C-alpha cells in the first residue's frame, strides 16, 4: 500500500502486566524478540495472557487498557511508552474478534479512511490508499456500501483493509475468525495467508482453531502457561510438531491441532504432522496407523435413538415478521421431530432461520401457521412453558434474574411454586452436577463466560424440561469452555431430555449430534444423520459449514488411496486409546478470568 513501513523489530524484555484489582499478574517476566517478517503464534490456556501480550506489543496496554507494567517493550528500538501518542498504531495494526464492535463508521470507505484521518495522513493521498487497500481484499466494488449490509466475513476483510491502508508492518490477529461461520472463517484465513505471503509483514497470531494456521503460515510458536510465563518458545515444528512438545502443551491446557491430537492418540513418538495434508500423509505412511483408526471408528452415527415416540413434534412452522415497509419470512414451512434423549443440531449461515426455529419451538416466535407439540401439549396457546421447553440464549447474561447463583437456579422452581425443601434439594444437586457448587453465593454477573453458560443451562434444566434448546452455545467462548459443553450436554441427555442446538461449531456437531438439520433462507434443506451430513460436501456448502479437521484428514487420506473410514469421532478415538472426555477432569474454575472488559486472555 501507500507508504508501507518496514516491519519494526520487536523486543520484549522482563515484561510483567497486572490488571487493576487482580491478585495475579496476567504476564510475568516475558522475554521475546520478534524479528521483522516473522509469523508467530501465541498459544496458551484461557487466561494465560496471549491477548495481553499481543495488545501490549500493539501499544494498547497500558495506553488504552489500564494496567501496571514492568519490564520493557521496544518497537524499532524505542520503548512503546516513549512513542508519541498514536505512533504505535503506525507500526502495528490489530484485527479483533468481533466485527461489529470494531467497526466504527457506517460506510466501508470511511471505515478504511478512519485510521488515516486519525494520524493525520495527507488528504491528497487518502483516496488512492483507501482504494488500494479495498482492492487488496477484493471489496473495491463495495466501497460506498453501508457496512451493516456486509457479511461477517466481509466485515473482517474491511478491518484488514483498514490496517493495510495504514501500511503497518506488524499485524496482530486476535482470533479474527472466532465469530464467523466455518466457511467464512476459512475464507478469511485464505485472505490473510494471501496478504502475508511476502516476508515484509510481521504477523502475531492468537488463535484457538490451530488447524487454520499451523500448516504453511506460522513458523514459530510461543506458549504461555496459566501464570503468564513463557513455557515454550521455538519453531512450530519443535513446539507443536514433536510428541514431547505437544504433550507439554496438552498439560498446559493448550488446544492442539487435529493433526497433532490424532498422531498423539495413535501413540506417535518423535516428529508429528502439522496440518491436514501432513497428517493424511503421515497416516498412510504406516499401515498399522490406518489399522488402529479403522478399529476405533465404527463409521456410523452415535447410538441411534430411532423408533419410539417423539417428544417434540413441529409441523408447517411459518414465521413472518412484519414492520412498516418490511415483510420478512424468517421461517417457511419447517417441520421437525425429536425423540427423548436425542440431540439435533441446526446448522446454516447467519440469517438462515435457526434462531427463529428455536424460538418457534419455545413459543417465543409468532407463528403464522403450523403447530408445535411437546409431550402431548400444544405449545403457544399460553406462551412459553419452562417445564416443556427450556431455552438457553446465546448471551447467557440475558436470562439472569437473581443476585446469586443459587437464587438464579432456584428461580424457575420457585416460580412454579415448588416446596422450599424440594427447591433446596434440587438446587444443591444441579449446582453440583454443573460444577457450580463453590459459587452458590456469587453474583451471576461476576462469573466467567464459561461459568455463566453453565449457570444458564443449570437454571433451565432444573425444572426438567422435556426439550432443551441451546442457541449458539459456543459463540464467543474459548476452546476449553466450548469443549466442556460436550460434558454438559451429556449430563442433560442422561435425564432423557431432548436437545436442540443451533450452532456454527462443526466439531461440536461431529461430537454430539445424532441428527443435523441444515437450513438456508428460512427453509429446512435436509434432516439427516450427522454422519451423513459431515461427508456431504454439497450440503456442507449450502449451510456454510466445512468438514471438521479430523474428517478433512480422513478425506485426504482416502484421496491418497488409503482405506480410511468415512467418519470418525474424537470420542471413538479416545475410547480406543484409553482416554475419555471425562478423564480430562472437570474444567478448572480457578484462573478463568471474568470477561468484564476486553477479555485479557
Amino acid at each position: 500500500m501507500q507508504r508501507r513501513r518496514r516491519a519494526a523489530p520487536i523486543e520484549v524484555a522482563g515484561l510483567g502486566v497486572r490488571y487493576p484489582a487482580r491478585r495475579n499478574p496476567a504476564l510475568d517476566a516475558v522475554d521475546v524478540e520478534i524479528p521483522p517478517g516473522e509469523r508467530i503464534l501465541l498459544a496458551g490456556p484461557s487466561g494465560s495472557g496471549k491477548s495481553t501480550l499481543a495488545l501490549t506489543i500493539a501499544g494498547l496496554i497500558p495506553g488504552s487498557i489500564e494496567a501496571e507494567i514492568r519490564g520493557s517493550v521496544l518497537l524499532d528500538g524505542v520503548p512503546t511508552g516513549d512513542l508519541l501518542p498514536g505512533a504505535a498504531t503506525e507500526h502495528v495494526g490489530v484485527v479483533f474478534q468481533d466485527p461489529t464492535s470494531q467497526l466504527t463508521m457506517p460506510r466501508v470507505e470511511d471505515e478504511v479512511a478512519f485510521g488515516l484521518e486519525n494520524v493525520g495522513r495527507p488528504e491528497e493521498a487518502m483516496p488512492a490508499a483507501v482504494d488500494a487497500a479495498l482492492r487488496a481484499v477484493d471489496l473495491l466494488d463495495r466501497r460506498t456500501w453501508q457496512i451493516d449490509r456486509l457479511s461477517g466475513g466481509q466485515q473482517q476483510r474491511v478491518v484488514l483493509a483498514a490496517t493495510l491502508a495504514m501500511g503497518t508492518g506488524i499485524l496482530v490477529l486476535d482470533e479474527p475468525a472466532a465469530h464467523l461461520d466455518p466457511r467464512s472463517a476459512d475464507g478469511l484465513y485464505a485472505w490473510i495467508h494471501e496478504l502475508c505471503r511476502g516476508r515484509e509483514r510481521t504477523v502475531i497470531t492468537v488463535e484457538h482453531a490451530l488447524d487454520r494456521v499451523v500448516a504453511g503460515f506460522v513458523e514459530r510458536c510461543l506458549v504461555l502457561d496459566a501464570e503468564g510465563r513463557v513455557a515454550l518458545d521455538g519453531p512450530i515444528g519443535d513446539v507443536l510438531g514433536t510428541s514431547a512438545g505437544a504433550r507439554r502443551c496438552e498439560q498446559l491446557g493448550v488446544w492442539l491441532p487435529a493433526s497433532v491430537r490424532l498422531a498423539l492418540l495413535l501413540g506417535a513418538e518423535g516428529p508429528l504432522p502439522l496440518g491436514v495434508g501432513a497428517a493424511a500423509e503421515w497416516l498412510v505412511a504406516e499401515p498399522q496407523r490406518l489399522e488402529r483408526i479403522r478399529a476405533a471408528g465404527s463409521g456410523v452415527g452415535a447410538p441411534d435413538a430411532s423408533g419410539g415416540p417423539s417428544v417434540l413434534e413441529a409441523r408447517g412452522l411459518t414465521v413472518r415478521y412484519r414492520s412498516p415497509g418490511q415483510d420478512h419470512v424468517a421461517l417457511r414451512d419447517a417441520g421437525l421431530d425429536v425423540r427423548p434423549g436425542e440431540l439435533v443440531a441446526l446448522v446454516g449461515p447467519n440469517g438462515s432461520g435457526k434462531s427463529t426455529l428455536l424460538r418457534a419451538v419455545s413459543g417465543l416466535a409468532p407463528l403464522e401457521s403450523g403447530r408445535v407439540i411437546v409431550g402431548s401439549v400444544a405449545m403457544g396457546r399460553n406462551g412459553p412453558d419452562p417445564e416443556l421447553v427450556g431455552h438457553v440464549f446465546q448471551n447467557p447474561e440475558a436470562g439472569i434474574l437473581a443476585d446469586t447463583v443459587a437464587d438464579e437456579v432456584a428461580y424457575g422452581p420457585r416460580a412454579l411454586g415448588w416446596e422450599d425443601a424440594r427447591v433446596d434439594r434440587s438446587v444443591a444437586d444441579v449446582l453440583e452436577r454443573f460444577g457450580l457448587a463453590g459459587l452458590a453465593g456469587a453474583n451471576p454477573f461476576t462469573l466467567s463466560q464459561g461459568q455463566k453458560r453453565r449457570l444458564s443451562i443449570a437454571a433451565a434444566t432444573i425444572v426438567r424440561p422435556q426439550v432443551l434448546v441451546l442457541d449458539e452455545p459456543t459463540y464467543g467462548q474459548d476452546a476449553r469452555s466450548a469443549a466442556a459443553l460436550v460434558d454438559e450436554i451429556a449430563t442433560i441427555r442422561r435425564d432423557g431430555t431432548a436437545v436442540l442446538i443451533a450452532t456454527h461449531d462443526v466439531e461440536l456437531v461431529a461430537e454430539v449430534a445424532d441428527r443435523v438439520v441444515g437450513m438456508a433462507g428460512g427453509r429446512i434443506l435436509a434432516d439427516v444423520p450427522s454422519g451423513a451430513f459431515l461427508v456431504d460436501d454439497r450440503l456442507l456448502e449450502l449451510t456454510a459449514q466445512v468438514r471438521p479437521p479430523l474428517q478433512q484428514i480422513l478425506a485426504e487420506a482416502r484421496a491418497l488411496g488409503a482405506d480410511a473410514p468415512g467418519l470418525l469421532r474424537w470420542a471413538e478415538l479416545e475410547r480406543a486409546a484409553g482416554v475419555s472426555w471425562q478423564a480430562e477432569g472437570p474444567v478448572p474454575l480457578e484462573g478463568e478470568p471474568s470477561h468484564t472488559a476486553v477479555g485479557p486472555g
Partner: protein
Amino acid sequence: MNVRIFSFAEANSWLRRRNPAVKIGAHLALTLLLTLVFDPITPLVFICVAFLAGRLLGSVPIRQLAVALTVFWLLGVSLVLSNALFASDPRSTTVIWAWGPFNATVEGATIGLSLAERMAAIAAFSVLFTMSTDPTDLVRSLVQQLRMAPRLAYTILAAYRFLPGLGREYETIRMAHQLRGRRRPRGPAGWLEEQRRVLVPLFTGAVRRTDRVALAMDSRGFGSGRTRTHYRRLRVDRQDAALLVAAIGGGILILAVSAAFGVLRLWTGVLGA
C-alpha cells in the same frame, strides 16, 4: 418501501448534497420563524413548502413524508381537541358545543390547530433533514464547519452504530425473562424491579461492547492527539448559500404575504389567546 421516522434514506438528491451544517442553519431559521406565528393559516403554508421541497429537492415522495409524520398527525388531532375543550374561558368565547362541564370553543380549537400545525411543520423539516443527511457527512460537517471536537463527534457516530443492536438485545432479554416464567410484576415497585432486571444485563453488555469499540478505535490511532486530516472535505458552496438564503428569505416572505392578507398573528409574549 421502508418508512422509518428519523432515518437516513440513501437517495441522491440536491438536498442530500447540501452541507449538513448549512441544513442545520436553515432548519433553525425556519423553526425560529415558526415559533413566532400564532394563526392557523401561515404554518399550513410552511407544511406545504416542506412537502414541496422534499418532493422537488430531496426526492422524498409526498406519501412517504406523510407516513413518516404519522405520529405528529395523531398528536396534532389530540392537541386540537384538548385545546378546544380546555384552552379558553367559555364566557368570553364562542361555544360551539357544550356537554356538562365541557365547552368546546372556536378560539380554543384555533389555538390547538395552530400549535398542531407548527409542530407538524417543524417535524416535517426535521424528517427532511434526517432523510437527506448521511450521518457520516453530518459528523464531518459538525467537525469541519461547526468546530465540534472530533473526539466527541466520532464517538457519537460510533455509538449511533450500535443503537439498533441495543434494541434487539432489549427484546432478547425480555424474552429470556418471559421464558424463565417471570410474571408481570404489579405496582410501581414491581415495575422498578422489572426495569432493573432488564437494564443490568443490557448495560453490562453495552459497557463491554463500548470498551471493545473504544479499544478498536484506539488501535487505529483515534485520540492520537495529532491534527486530524479528512478523507472527505465538506465545503460550503454557492448552492449551500442559496439554500440558507431561500430558507430565511422564503420564511420571511411567507410571513409578509400572510401579514398582507391580514391572516398573520404573531406571538405577543403571552401564552393563550
